């Protein structure tokens, strides 16, 4: 077997050294009634590298890859061009096959990268500090709500109606067991984000208000207004950013007053991958650091005075605090954080700004083109690279039919909000630098045909 270095002569020698007659003898503590004496039935036997490759290629070919045709899906996962260098570097064995850096003297590569990553995320979000990553944006959001409960000692969270419904569903799952009270409703196809009503409902029992920026319909909520309302009642503002490229063009949530900023980092370096692994980003104010979930990397010095990095403040974490930990998270998204950090380093301020400008330019082109179609209404007054259009018909069958013709038109809102018939005509369209004017034209013509 190609992944097993022991041969029969090694095994006999080792068994002799141990004083056992066979490998089976080493399983003496397992009661014979539950110890299997032959390979489990119903599964194939070992296969060559070539055979496995063929099998997996056949499975892959049954999917339609995003790059095969015009592609307009977003809603929390975005298709961007990732420089070839990113994937090359993350496949260096010293990064790929290392463990969590528990022995800092021989893990400075991972640790310094994490310190750089934390610094990049903090700046991107306009926050004082950031952690070393969470599983994904949705789980980071649920952790932010529990963190707000710990800080404020209150248990009512208000979710803006523009929060991604799957993120909201996660929070509801968590709340069922923690008994937090969650207030949330579906949005309407309206250019206004509905924040005034939400801000007015903040009271002395509110732990936090969770606002996605841009929201799930692509609208841009003015976080500063809710931040002020939240702080006036002693509540925290949690901002959620599902598309980090947005912040190449928009004011940061931190500078608009958000106390905790979380989000998805998948756009940079990670790729679509059918939903995972992704990268949860988590940033906040320095004064709240001891309530933060997840790993933190900090700068320090060694005994010779050289700068170095270690995992720090681990008294918040499960392996030290056990049932009193701030979260049960252990393994996070280290390698995705590396991919994000390398992509971000290749961009820098200059590249991120240019990337955002290109996304926005093409999104405006697409929005204007689609809004000009008969019967189509552009819902958004404001947007970055994703917007919502209202069709004169149910969007779901249109999306399905266009997919069969090779155009992945976007996300029908009924997929995200099945219980909200008033949104069934809504179609969410995302546009990035990978979208060409020809793609936009093909989508417009395809829609025109279906709506005729």
């Amino acid at each position, binding site marked *: *077997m190609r*992944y*097993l*270095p*022991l041969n029969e002569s090694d*095994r006999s020698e080792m*068994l002799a050294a141990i004083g056992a007659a066979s490998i089976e003898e*080493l*399983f003496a503590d*397992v009661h014979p009634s539950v110890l*299997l004496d032959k*390979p489990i039935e119903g599964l194939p036997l070992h296969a060559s590298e070539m055979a*496995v490759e063929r099998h997996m290629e056949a*499975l892959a070919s*049954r999917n339609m890859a*995003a790059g095969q045709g015009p*592609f307009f899906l977003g809603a929390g*996962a975005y298709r961007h061009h990732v*420089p070839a*260098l990113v994937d090359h*570097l993350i496949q260096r064995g010293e990064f*790929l096959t*290392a463990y969590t850096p528990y022995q800092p*003297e021989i893990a400075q590569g*991972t640790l310094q990268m994490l310190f750089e990553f934390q*610094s990049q995320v903090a*700046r991107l979000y306009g926050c004082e500090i950031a952690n070393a*990553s969470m599983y*994904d944006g949705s789980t980071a959001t649920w952790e932010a709500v529990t963190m707000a409960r710990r800080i404020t000692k209150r248990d009512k969270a208000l979710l803006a109606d523009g929060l991604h419904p*799957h993120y909201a569903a996660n929070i509801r*799952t968590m709340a*069922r*067991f923690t*008994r937090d009270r969650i207030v949330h409703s579906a949005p309407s196809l309206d250019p206004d984000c509905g924040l005034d009503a939400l801000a007015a409902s903040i009271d002395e029992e509110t732990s936090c208000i969770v606002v996605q920026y841009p929201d799930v319909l692509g609208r*841009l909520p*003015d976080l500063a207004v809710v931040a002020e309302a939240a702080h006036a009642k002693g509540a925290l503002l949690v901002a959620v950013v599902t598309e980090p490229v947005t912040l190449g063009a*928009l004011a940061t949530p931190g500078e608009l007053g958000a106390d905790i900023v979380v989000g998805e980092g998948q756009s940079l370096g990670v790729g*679509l991958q*059918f*939903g995972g692994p992704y990268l949860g980003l988590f940033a906040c104010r320095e004064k709240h650091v001891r309530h933060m979930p997840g790993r933190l990397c*900090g700068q320090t*010095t*060694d005994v010779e005075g050289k700068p170095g990095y270690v995992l*720090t403040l681990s008294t918040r974490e*499960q392996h*030290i605090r*056990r049932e009193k930990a701030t979260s*049960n998270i252990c*393994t996070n*998204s*280290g390698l*995705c954080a590396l991919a994000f950090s390398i992509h971000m*380093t290749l*961009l820098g*301020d200059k*590249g991120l*700004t240019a990337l955002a400008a290109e996304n926005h330019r093409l999104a405006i082109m697409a929005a204007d083109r689609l809004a000009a179609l008969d019967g189509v209404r552009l819902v958004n007054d*404001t947007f970055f690279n994703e917007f919502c259009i209202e069709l004169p018909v149910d969007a779901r069958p249109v999306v*399905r039919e266009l997919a069969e013709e090779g155009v992945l038109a976007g996300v029908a809102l009924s*997929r995200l909000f099945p219980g909200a018939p008033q949104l069934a005509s809504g179609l969410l369209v995302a546009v990035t630098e990978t979208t060409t004017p020809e793609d936009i034209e093909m989508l417009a013509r395809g829609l025109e045909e279906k709506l005729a």
Partner: protein
Amino acid sequence: MNANSSGWRPAMPADEETVYPAGSTHTGNRALMVEEPLIFEISNSLNCGVDLPEPEPGRPSRLGNLARDRQLGLPGLSQPEAVRHYTRLSRQNYAIDCGIFPLGSCTMKHNPRLNEQVARLKGFADVHPLQPEGSVQGALAVIDELAHWLVTLTGMHSVAMSPKAGAHGELCGILCIRAALEARGEMREVVLVPESAHGTNPATAAFAGYRVETIPATADGRIDLGALRQRLGTDVAALMITNPNTCGLFERDMVAISEAVHAVGGYVYCDGANFNAIVGRVRPGDLGVDAMHINLHKTFSTPHGGGGPGSGPVVLSEALAPFAPLPIVRRTAEGTLTLIEEETAEADAPESFGRMTAFHGQMGMFTRALSYMLSHGADGLRQVSGDAVLNANYVLRSLEDVLDAPYAHAGPCMHEALFSDAKVAEGISTLDIAKGLIDEGFHPMTMYFPLVVHGAMLVEPTETESKATLDQFIAAMRSVAGRANDGDTSLLQAPLHAPRRRLDETGAARKPVLVWSEVSQFERVE
């Protein structure tokens, strides 16, 4: 630009006649070991590693009043600079590609590169999670096929695929248990956890709203069945157990333990972190387990990546299966695969506890794990656990005369060998042995875990180490342990040859510096 502007600077020559002491260098570099500054220190605002159109001034905007008007301060590097930065950083890491990584409980095995190649096929890597079902039948087939492997290998009823890592899987299992109890109209309050459990177990139970109580171990390192029976009652929701346990031992009484828990209406959660010891030989379903997460990044070889991503599918008994989270992949009567999400959950999964992540789980890890399982097959996976256990016992018997092995008398170990610091001279600790091993060119074992053994050293070699590597490791370990037993205080200085000497962790926690700022901590101190 100084070579090391992060604050530390090597002694600068006073004039050209300065003589450097032997071994020191002007740059602080040591041949292949090159000091690498932070990206913030080597970049400037003009550098960029991508080519994009320059934004046109006065271009149209739909950003309302939210356009950003200041720089973020994100450093940029050209591609040659970036390659060098990250390559130099990588060389300061130990990794499984560089040598044995015997961290107990972590199962650091070889990561096959076929799996990396497979995961990068466009049909997997470039697929959006919300594409219409008809366009992702291959992705759903991967989930379905992997689920079949996991269910068959564990002898369980079904599997929840979406959890993102082991601890997320634990939460999934405990939430299934809580939902099942609530469906029976019961509000139980307690989760029992053995002393030797991973920290994630009590953290998970507490997060799900339970009070955690500890069950003691017997002198031979296993759960005390008598004490368990005594504590069990109708207030107990679940027992969270690890089998093989964190002392590296199989819980001989596992079937009786499960029966006792079931007898009071509770459920058995098994932490599957140690599944590598028994894969292909023991099916947890036969042991009475109700829920167990499987770390695909341990048993099924997906890379750890310096701390993730992991993947933690949870296999479930028939009693817990109805409560599994969304989304769920199901085969239709026509043979196509379909996703049960919120839209159809009311009809098809009415008791599901809901969603615990935005999409479908760690697809990129599923493809890698499936590729690994297909490679080994049912026969090869038996050999995996056999060799893993053989390697661990070989380490145990080769070291038990120099290091105290508290449970060695109790018979063979499973996939990991546990030692204590009982023979180590006063003034020297497990930490010093670990740091001594670093100088010998090895990654140390897990230290100070499990908590039930003083100065614990937990060695898990895995099946992908050759006998020659084990012999080298054993020889190094014998030497370092011998020095520790003899009271050789030079170990307190170790490591001497790593990229860094011992780091000030207390200082790091007392005054945390978590992000870079233009004023470095060194200057702030002054």
